[in-house]
């Protein structure tokens, strides 16, 4: 296939941007998962090794990263359900936009439930 010379960015709407986000979050989670399995495997090596690595998860920087990761998973999960509804529910395509707002709403609610506690755990005195 010859490729067309690139022009400007396509100005898609909600549908396209939610797909971009779904893709980005999906890949991020996937790579995190690879690493996560590796680090968890250290439990087979020795408790010290595991604890040493897991300790780095508890630094504030990683704590923020974790928050981002959770947000990514939550978005990906809810949006994944939205996609499934678009595909299986006959009225899905018509309400895809509404459903995206619901997904974002749920994301906010979930993060509101999670973040304060998590940040307290990370930054708060233990």
């Amino acid at each position, binding site marked *: 296939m010859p490729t067309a010379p690139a022009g400007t960015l396509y100005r898609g709407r909600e549908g396209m941007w939610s797909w971009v986000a779904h893709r980005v979050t999906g*890949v991020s989670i*996937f790579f995190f998962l690879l690493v996560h399995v590796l680090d968890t495997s250290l439990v*087979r090596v020795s408790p010290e090794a595991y604890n040493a690595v897991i300790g780095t998860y508890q630094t504030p920087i990683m704590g923020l990263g974790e928050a981002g990761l*959770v947000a990514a998973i939550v978005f990906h999960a809810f949006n*994944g359900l939205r*996609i499934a509804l678009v595909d299986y529910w006959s009225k899905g395509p018509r309400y895809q936009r509404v459903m995206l707002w619901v997904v974002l709403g749920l994301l906010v609610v979930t993060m509101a439930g*999670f973040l304060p506690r998590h940040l307290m755990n990370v930054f708060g005195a233990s």
Partner: protein
Amino acid sequence: MTTQTDIPTPRSPYVRRKTTRGNFELYSWVFMRASGVVLVVLVFGHLFVNLMVGDGVKAIDFAFVGGKWSSPFWQIWDLLMLWLAMIHGTNGVRTIINDYAQRDLTRGVLKSLLYLAFTITVVLGTLVIFTFEPCPPDAPAELLASFCTA
């Protein structure tokens, strides 16, 4: 003037490279959605227990993991999560490679890498969950779950 040249249609027709029919894409598509729904439960449960209950991320250490995996319930939970998430994720990344890698060679290389990563991760993860020894005999007791000393 009677030039007798039989000339085919002037613009070269476009040919699809090859047809790959069969239900593989169909099943993988259904799987993405089905596994997604199950994953919602598994992942959210996982996250909740690890990050929300008790002291959250602060509380995670060898002892915590040991405590969880001593119960078959969490062993199965995590095993299922591992497999589903890995198949789901790998399949997702496969789609993405199909989308963006245009040359056959690039596609091949990237996919080989992907499947390699998949195999290593899944095998490793499975082994760890099943061969896990919550109370390794030579480890310092304070790092282990409380029941080891019991």
